[in-house]
């Protein structure tokens, strides 16, 4: 599972970085979304990801290693909400830029060939 997770994060991050370096605003916003997925998965991975383990500790505490760490999940939830909101905000600015500059180039003007 570690390998799958690592390859997944790496692929998402690499695609995201490549896309935010592209000249079109739409590519940039998709790149930012992919990067934020990569980062969210990364946070889960850094909290020692376990599959199928409960996060809440029962009355008899027992072995903490049997439980998943709830904090990274809370962090990811917050990060998802925030990145969703900022992406939506960026989308608005993207449309404003498209309308004012009449181009979807990130610099607001086409490069001189």
């Amino acid at each position, binding site marked *: 599972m570690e390998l799958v997770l690592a390859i997944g994060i790496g692929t998402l991050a690499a695609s995201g970085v490549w896309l935010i370096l592209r000249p079109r605003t739409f590519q940039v916003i998709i790149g*930012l979304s992919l990067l934020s997925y990569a980062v969210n998965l990364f*946070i889960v991975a*850094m909290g020692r990801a376990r599959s199928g383990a409960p996060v809440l500790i029962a009355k008899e505490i027992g072995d903490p290693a049997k439980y998943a760490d709830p904090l990274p999940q809370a*962090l990811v939830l917050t990060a998802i909400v925030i990145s969703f909101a900022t992406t939506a905000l960026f989308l608005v600015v993207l449309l404003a*830029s498209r309308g004012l500059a009449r181009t979807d180039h*990130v610099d*607001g003007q086409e490069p001189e060939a």
Partner: protein
Amino acid sequence: MSGVAAGLVIAPILLPLLAGAGMLLLHGEKQRAVIAGLNVAATIALVCIAAVLLGMSDSGTREVYRLGNWPAPFGIVLVLDRLSALMLLLTSVLALASVVFSLARWHRAGAHFHSLFQFLLMGLNGAFLTGDLFNLFVFFELLLAASYGLLLHGSGLARVKAGLHYIVVNLAASLLFLVGVSLIYGVTGTLNMADLAVRVPHVAPESRGLLEAGAAVLAVAFLLKAGMWPLSFWLPTAYAAASPPVASIFAIMTKVGVYIILRLSLLLFGEEAGASAGFGGDWLLWGGLATIIFGAIGTLASQDTARLGGFSVLVSSGTVLAATGIGQAGVTSAALFYLVSSTLGIGAFFLLVELVERGREPGADVIAVTREAYGEEDELDEAEEDVGVAIVATMGLLGVAFIGCALVIAGLPPLSGFIAKFALLAAALNPGDRSGAVPGSGWALLVVLILSGFATLVAMSRAGLRIFWASPDRTVPRIRAIEMAPVMVLLMICVAQTILAGPVIRFMQATAQSLHAPAGYVSDVLQVGAEGVRQVEGK
């Protein structure tokens, strides 16, 4: 801690939240006066609260506010110490000046200016008060989201273009922030800053690389906000494009990055941090020096007065970063003095720029510089523009304010900028160890600071000559008292800082000393005595 005092610690976050949210309920032209009044009232209240908090913090005790009353490493805490109280007061004073300035006309340039302004203040205050890394992320996002809106305030192609870059850069930086936070959490298992300070010296050697990588990634995110070269390419354009009141409050935004770097580097990687002590100090020093050089060259190269202000922001944050990199209590205290003085000076400058530019046609700067470069004197425009009555007082006031800003920003006597730079160099050249030798970093700082001051002076004088003496075709701008007063008040605070330099420096020294001794912070936040800290460390 008494209940009222505890409530006051969270007030700088709650007050702007309630004020900003309340203003959202009111809209329309008729209620604009009510909204503006609410904003001014909330900001004045914030100044008062910050002043009271500063007085509370100066007794040397740290007020710790536990949200939900959960004990410290598990719950989120707000921590008020001298540094955070100082930053709160600086923010609120700058905010008051900027909001009063905006009342003259700028707040009508777009919707929800006042709400966004209060939300920005909430994010700033929260970032200064929080004692938890993830909470810091949330407050950073809050202040950034508000700043995206404020940067676009007034609209127009230039702002949207600069805003697009600004948003992308900051979103990418936020993702780096998350990567850094999660790496640190993965290694240490905590996000509470005080708890981190306890755990960093005991991190296993094989995990230390990961911890330092996490801290470095985190630092990149903060340095991007602080505008350290080469992460500062976006800053001058964005600041020059922003409307003047917004640019003025943005002068504190770079200082948030600087503040976090200062706090975390001393807390996590101070002298007591074991194997990681002093981590990243050299990077901060040389990066800061490179930022000053870049900013100084930028001030000389800028053809536009607002861009000149943007590059001065870089010089200012570079200076504080370099001083942080040196890592001595004496240098830190002088750097704090410099931070206050330069932030006020630059804030006043951004407001002033718009006032002096008002009498000139757009693009006049570029034409003037081109004229200088080609030695052409344009004689065509002479006969026109005799209409405006030359009010001596207006031009005189503007001139005095411009000279004041230039003196503070360039660091010339007799104003506070000079005292700040003098204290900084005196501390950097007298490290106070036995050998008495001046370290290389002290010499480097000396040379770079003097040269950057000179470059700023040249650039400011050139701009001043062009604006006040060499524009035959200018009209005297119509300026209302409500626009001139904030600039004057900010400069008067710099004057007061000069006259009261003794007490202010003493406060800064106390601040720096408590920053350089993080054990006190740790024991206050975790609510264990000095004995308890040692016990926790022993585990």
